[in-house]
């Protein structure tokens, strides 16, 4: 790697620090492999939820070079929509832990689909109302607007469910799938993974193989040339926001079911982790966002276990800084998958 060839003392320090962390982790893993594997699985599950949100940041950045600060709050809206459908509606009796399995599955699927649709359209509306009119303005104007949209969504959440944490119905069992408790992998974890994989595959297929996906890549590379070959640039940008919103909506419902709670400002913290994941992986790069999401999930769960929950945020951002020291554009950041189409 040429980035190491020209290494400064900072990057050597970064390598040493990361190596120390990895060795410490390895010692723990050997001492108690069951605990390590369980922690790894939790990390992967958390990472899946983060990755889905990170994709929304990276998709939008890839196409219009904007950090959509409202994205995390759209994720919160997704969790609220899911919660309202599952617990708050009188249409059918609130679904609870006692309901039949079939009703539960149906309820979860419905919550996922509705939240995906709602968040998709919220994202499209945000772009139309707040970002599109500013497309030719200085970057900073759009960025400030994005922060404004974030506050608006948060306040909608505040009015909707109040300032306190709200509980999600316990629809998915927290029981361990594996017998005994050497390795812990719960039905909840399985649910998150099982819901994430088709979404990732679907997105990858869409971008690589469909006409609309190719149009997205073309717009990301050169908007004027894209228009010249007949691509409706505005519509393509809307579709990009739609996709990001859909993933955020799914992630919001999954987060609620997984953690059992949600709150009006959950989008801020989760959004920050997801944004960090996108930057870590290389913003604009789809694979990078997924890799970054899983990495942050795993680093977080390891830090929770072996260093202490209080230190987790510091460890995560510390790793971000270390990575950016040597790869200022993130792990996979030198080419964008939105633009390049590689997955």
């Amino acid at each position: 790697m040429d980035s190491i060839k020209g290494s400064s003392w900072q990057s050597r320090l970064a390598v040493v620090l990361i190596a120390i962390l990895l060795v410490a982790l390895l010692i723990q893993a050997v001492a108690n492999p069951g605990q390590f594997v369980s922690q790894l699985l939790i990390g992967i599950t958390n990472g899946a939820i983060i990755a889905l949100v990170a994709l929304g940041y990276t998709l939008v950045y890839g196409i219009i070079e904007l950090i959509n600060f409202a994205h995390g709050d759209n994720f919160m809206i997704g969790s609220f929509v899911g919660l309202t459908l599952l617990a708050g509606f009188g249409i059918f009796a609130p679904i609870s832990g006692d309901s039949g399995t079939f009703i539960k599955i149906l309820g979860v699927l419905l919550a996922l689909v509705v939240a995906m649709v709602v968040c998709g359209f919220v994202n499209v509306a945000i772009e139309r109302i707040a970002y599109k009119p500013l497309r030719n303005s200085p970057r900073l104007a759009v960025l400030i607007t994005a922060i404004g949209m974030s506050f608006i969504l948060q306040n909608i959440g505040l009015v909707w469910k109040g300032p306190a944490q709200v509980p999600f119905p316990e629809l998915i069992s927290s029981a361990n799938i594996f017998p005994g408790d050497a390795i812990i992998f719960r039905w909840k974890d399985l649910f998150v993974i099982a819901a994430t994989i088709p979404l990732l595959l679907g997105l990858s297929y869409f971008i690589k193989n469909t006409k609309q996906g190719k149009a997205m890549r073309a717009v990301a590379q050169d908007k004027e040339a894209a228009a010249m070959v007949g691509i409706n640039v505005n519509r393509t940008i809307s579709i990009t926001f739609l996709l990001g919103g859909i993933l955020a909506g799914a992630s919001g419902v999954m987060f609620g079911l997984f953690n059992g709670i949600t709150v009006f400002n959950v989008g801020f913290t989760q959004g920050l982790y997801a944004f960090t994941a996108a930057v870590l992986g290389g913003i604009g790069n789809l694979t990078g966002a997924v890799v970054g999401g899983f990495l942050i999930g795993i680093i977080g769960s390891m830090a929770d276990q072996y260093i202490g929950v209080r230190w987790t945020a510091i460890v995560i951002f510390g790793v971000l800084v270390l990575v950016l020291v040597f790869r200022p554009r993130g792990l996979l950041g030198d080419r964008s998958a939105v633009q390049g189409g590689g997955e």
Partner: protein
Amino acid sequence: MALLEVENMHSYYGNIHALRGVSLTVEEGEVVTLIGSNGAGKTTTLRSIHGVLPPKEGKVIFDGKEIQGTPAHDMISRGIAQSPEGRKIFSRMTVRENLEMGAYHRSDRDGIRTDMDRVFELFPRLQERIKQEAGTMSGGEQQMLAIGRALMSRPRLLLLDEPSMGLSPVLVERIFDIIREINAQGTTILLVEQNANVALEIATRGYVLETGAIVNSAPAAKLREDPKVREAYLGEI
């Protein structure tokens, strides 16, 4: 009736009044060239006709219909394609994908394949590079790709902005031969060129643009003889 008629077109970049009433016509089957020095407004004229920079005033009539104000992405299905200044190929897509994007609005698979073969006949080099990422090709190859991509829509009118830019003299000859051939196959061409010498050789008529307005227009042969044109654009004293 002319295929393209531009009447008194005015275009702005913010406050800069870049086109001050450009009028020109292109008849079906012609090669018309637009010459002028740097900053005269040649590129702006093509962009305005093409709807990328919608004109503030004036008319653009294509095939009898007024099309000023039509969004750029609808121009291609009306039959206007452009190989723009600076090529603007999709640099992170392969050669094949770039050509496919040129046929984005079409869905006739067989027709698209025929047209791709036709592009490969004109530019065998592109076929050799079919899987290469476009941004890694040489400047000349990229120019061929930009023209090929425009041809993939099977346009009635092809707008070419400085196709000889940055090419070696041999390649310039070759590109102009190909332009002639494209025209012979039935595509009308509006050609913008710095290289006025060659442009006037293949064109039927020419327009001279100066600071956003047409100052002269005549059959190409006549422009070549015009002392003012010779001095200003053909590098003769």
